[in-house]
């Protein structure tokens, strides 16, 4: 086995990727909308921006600031980070055999939003009768494993990151966990970036939180 992301005693959820079998794995993952999954190798990928560089730091700062806005219930300010041509998706995941890839459904999603629909969601949450998040659940977004890639557009970068969202509400002593990988297209803005595209690849096939009245 090569680099396997997993827990001892539990089947690795992601394909074992080594230099020798990466080609086979890449062939099995056919959904073009999953950039990056084919290349989880140790070598830097084309366009990859070095950790610690100015650009990498700027992206990291942005993601941390964004998480902070959401964790502090500033939805309307968060909406301001979303580009007008936003595409915000979260595919449904299924348990499949390893040879069939990661199990993300090519068509069905939990979210498939543009800027207008996201605005409607946030306008609703901002009112006094959005019971699902009032009182709000308590969330914390831990962002890590950030990789940044340059693109053909000088003002845009692709970013892949891991997210661990913890959520509790009212008297909960346990936390709902929503671990995910996010693939973003960020665009330079006067301050920081805007989010032009985000695809959220969640780990769970059966989601363990009662709703997605929250954003990832």
């Amino acid at each position, binding site marked *: 086995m090569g680099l396997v992301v997993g827990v001892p005693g539990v089947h690795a959820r992601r394909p074992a990727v080594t230099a020798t079998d990466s080609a086979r794995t890449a062939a099995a993952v056919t959904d073009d909308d999953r950039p990056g999954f084919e290349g989880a190798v140790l070598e830097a990928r084309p366009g990859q921006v070095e950790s610690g560089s100015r650009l990498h730091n700027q992206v990291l700062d942005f993601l941390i600031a964004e998480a902070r806005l959401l964790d502090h219930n500033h939805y309307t300010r968060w909406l301001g980070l979303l580009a007008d041509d936003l595409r915000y998706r*979260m595919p*449904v995941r*299924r*348990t*499949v*055999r390893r040879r*069939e890839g990661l*199990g993300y*459904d*090519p*068509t*069905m*999603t*939990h*979210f*498939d*939003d543009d800027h207008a*629909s996201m605005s*409607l*969601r946030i*306008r*609703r*949450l901002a*009112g006094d*009768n*959005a*019971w*699902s*998040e009032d009182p709000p659940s308590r969330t914390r977004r831990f962002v890590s494993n950030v990789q940044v890639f340059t693109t053909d557009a000088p003002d845009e970068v692709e970013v892949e990151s891991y997210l661990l969202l913890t959520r509790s509400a009212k008297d909960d002593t346990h936390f709902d966990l929503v671990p995910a990988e996010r693939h973003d297209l960020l665009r330079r803005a006067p301050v920081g970036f805007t989010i032009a595209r985000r695809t959220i690849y969640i780990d769970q*096939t*059966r*989601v*363990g*939180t*009662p*709703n*997605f*009245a929250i954003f990832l």
Partner: protein
Amino acid sequence: MTLIDRPADRPSRPDQRDGDGPVLSDGTRLIDLVDVERREVSMRLFSDPEVYELELEHLFARSWIMVAHESEIPDVGDFVTRNVGEDPVIVARGREGDIHVSLNMCTHRGMQVCRTDDGTQPSFKCPYHGWVFGLDGNLVGTPFERDMYGGVLDRPSLGLRQARVATYAGMVFVNWDDDAPPLEEFLGGYSWYLDLIYDRTPGGIECVGSPQRWVMDANWKIPSEQFNGADGYHVATLHRSLFEAMLPDADVGEITAASRRGLFGMDISSDLGHGMRTIAPARRPVFRNVTGRDRFDEPEDLSTLEALRLNPPTNLPADMADQVAAKLTDGQARGLLMYEPAAGGLFPNLGFASGNVHTHMPLGVGAFEMRSWIFVEKDAPAEFKETVRKSLLQSFGTSGTIEQDDAECWPAMQRNARGVIGRREKMRYQAFVGDRGPDGWEGGEHTHEGFSKDDSAWAWWLAYREYMRGGRP
């Protein structure tokens, strides 16, 4: 747990027993928890583990349960895995194109022979000892059979346990009870109404991708009675934020008025336990502009099809409106024009809202899995289907702005049903329209025209009571 329900010397088939059905260990008769006189339901039904065990037997092993749509498994060898109650099943497309539902449990030592949510394969090989079963569940081989068993293995009797299978509008239903009436009878006259959304065009409906799944800490009956009951009443308050978001410039009074208008329509209930809410379509104002009339009850100056073409039903492209003539009766087509099904249920655990269909599958007494499919017209253009899908995602399912708020109520009600005082309290269903409908209405069952009240929810509870008593409505 002491149950008088199943003494060893009585037949195990509940519906062969006479009388009043199960008595719980504190001496309470289960049927008394649905108080027919007062039209009240005990909160205990949501939290009592004895009741839950009885439901798995009386309902989930005896009633038709929807598990999949045919379009999820179009080709030979395609399969999906699902639950019926707490029993895992494989829904597979067999070699003859037929659909088989097998208990996902090896007849050798009880292991699951299939461990994925879906896939395509010619057979199922148990990973424990290697017994192999066909798509139809038949045992087709075992490793080292001569060495291991000699001649003692009776293969024909060792297939995976088969459920009865039937389909309506491509939806695959399962029943474990050989004595249950066929699906057609189980649906009864209610299918007249279901046809208006799910079986109205020659191409029919298809499922978009794989269903969403999530878990809520609430008893499965809480969402089931709500959907089935149609419960228009809750929309005005629980979902008020929708009106606020859609009418950003309206004042408080205008929002209240808009939410009240939405409560007028016609609820449908069935003696078999099914129920739905229909609404005078949102397109009525458009219709009024065309015809100068508020209602389509004088068809002489505009044919039903002409009117449907001008004002197509939800999720049906305008240029497909004519197709309903091939599938629906004239009465059904007129029904679609006057009162379009908006939301409802199918006893015991299916809920729907237009193209969105759910099942509420129990995971113990205090939790259920919501499985949420999106159905679109198969022959609609791809772009149209995509629009429908996105719009349904906005309202229903995990991120749906409507369903989010329901997820706030159901676990809180479950929490309340646990207290020793709380579980003695009641849910109340005393607001009734009674049987009332438009002249010349051709649909059967019970029609409740006017303000959306408790008629349909109560029909669900009466059916529940009858099943739990050991009978059938």
